[in-house]
């Protein structure tokens, strides 16, 4: 055991002090080592400058490299040394690591939700709605939205009609399974206004999806027999829904166009059609 050491009182005598760390390049290796030893003895543990010692050692290493010590092997014999972990410890570490990652993930999601909430978004609500929609569509596949193969028509589907007339509008990609696409009418009046109407139906009911180049959602949405009227929001976009005892109607704007879904649809079907708009 080493003896206890005391801090030097006032350091070495100034007369004995020597200038260290100067002109190292002009000194031989043995002179550097002698000077290093002298420095360590002179400075004492409280005043010794580790960087100064490092400078000497670095100069010696530059001129006469020594074989590197095995830091990891030496560490094995020390109380804080890394020892090889047992399989159960490794397993615990792995579980802990996974747990930490999960915890970090949850914390990040929570922070994002809080921030999004503060900004007026509702990511969890939106995600929940999306999941419900996916589940609904899996359980209730869409009815045919285009003409069957081999059947001729001016437009094979509403999507086809919009594409052919350069109308960049997203439309529902789900309709009730008992209904099917029937036909699409395209009209352009003498003022250049466009109207595209797609008809869908079954033996029991029918509905239409209409896109016009007049942006008049309030007028289109007006229904004096309405029993219920509300704004339905999906992914930040608003749709006006009007219900009466027979028909349902949804209107929304897409750039210069106004679109409408109207006909014999239940409120739930109408909302699902809106949610299917990409």
């Amino acid at each position, binding site marked *: *055991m*080493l003896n206890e*050491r005391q801090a030097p009182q006032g350091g070495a005598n100034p007369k004995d002090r020597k200038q260290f760390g100067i002109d190292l390049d002009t000194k*031989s*290796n*043995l002179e*550097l*080592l002698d000077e*290093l*030893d002298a420095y*360590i*003895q002179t*400075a*004492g*543990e*409280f*005043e*010794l*400058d*580790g960087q100064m*010692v*490092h400078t000497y*050692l670095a100069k*010696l*290493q530059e*001129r*006469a490299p*020594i*074989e*590197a*010590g*095995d*830091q990891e*092997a*030496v*560490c094995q*014999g*020390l*109380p*804080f040394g890394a020892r090889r972990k047992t399989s159960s410890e490794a397993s615990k570490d792995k579980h802990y690591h996974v747990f930490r990652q999960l915890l970090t993930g949850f914390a990040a999601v929570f922070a994002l939700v809080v921030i999004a909430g503060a900004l007026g978004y509702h990511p969890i609500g939106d995600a929940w709605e999306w999941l419900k929609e996916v589940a609904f569509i899996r359980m209730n596949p869409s009815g045919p939205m285009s003409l069957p193969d081999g059947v001729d028509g001016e437009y094979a589907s509403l999507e086809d009609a919009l594409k052919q007339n350069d109308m960049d509008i997203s439309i529902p990609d789900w309709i009730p399974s008992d209904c099917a696409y029937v036909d699409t009418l395209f009209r352009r009046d003498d003022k250049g206004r466009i109207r595209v109407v797609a008809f869908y139906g079954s033996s029991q009911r029918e509905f239409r999806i209409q896109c016009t180049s007049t942006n008049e959602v309030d007028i289109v949405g007006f229904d004096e027999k309405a029993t219920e009227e509300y704004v339905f929001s999906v992914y930040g976009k608003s749709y006006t829904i009007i219900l009466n005892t027979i028909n349902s109607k949804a209107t929304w704007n897409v750039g210069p166009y106004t679109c409408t879904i109207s006909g014999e649809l239940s409120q739930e079907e109408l909302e699902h059609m809106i949610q299917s708009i990409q």
Partner: protein
Amino acid sequence: MTHEQSKIISNLYRQYFDDIYGFVYRHIGDKELSEDITQQTFLTACQKPDEICSHENPIGWLYITASFIVRRENDRAYHKLEQSLEALDSPIAAEVVSTFDEILSDPLAISAKDREILLLKYRDGLRHREIAEKYGITELASIKRLSKALANCRSAYREKKF
């Protein structure tokens, strides 16, 4: 030693191992022994965790400790070393030296490190001071290294019956 103290000393070890080891090696001239002394230095730190962890200049403490252990090791080895050097004039040593070429030409007989210092001393005729200068180690470390190389050479001589 508390967990916090262990962490502090561990960090010192990671940070200063190379320098402490380098300092020791320059005074000892032997890798294994230098690693042992470096380990002993940090072991001493672990035995005095309160002192090292509250020390205002832990690197100073480490160098002084390493320096102390090196000096003690050199003092301990000095007598043994003198005997080894005297043995150079013994009949066995003379035989060894006379069969140098044979031993040195066998790569399995002695290590490249031993071969090099033996050649420097006995073929090139360098003095210990010159060898120490070349290796960047102290003169004493050079003598110890040569002594160890000779010991290995003798072992090779006895085992292989050159």
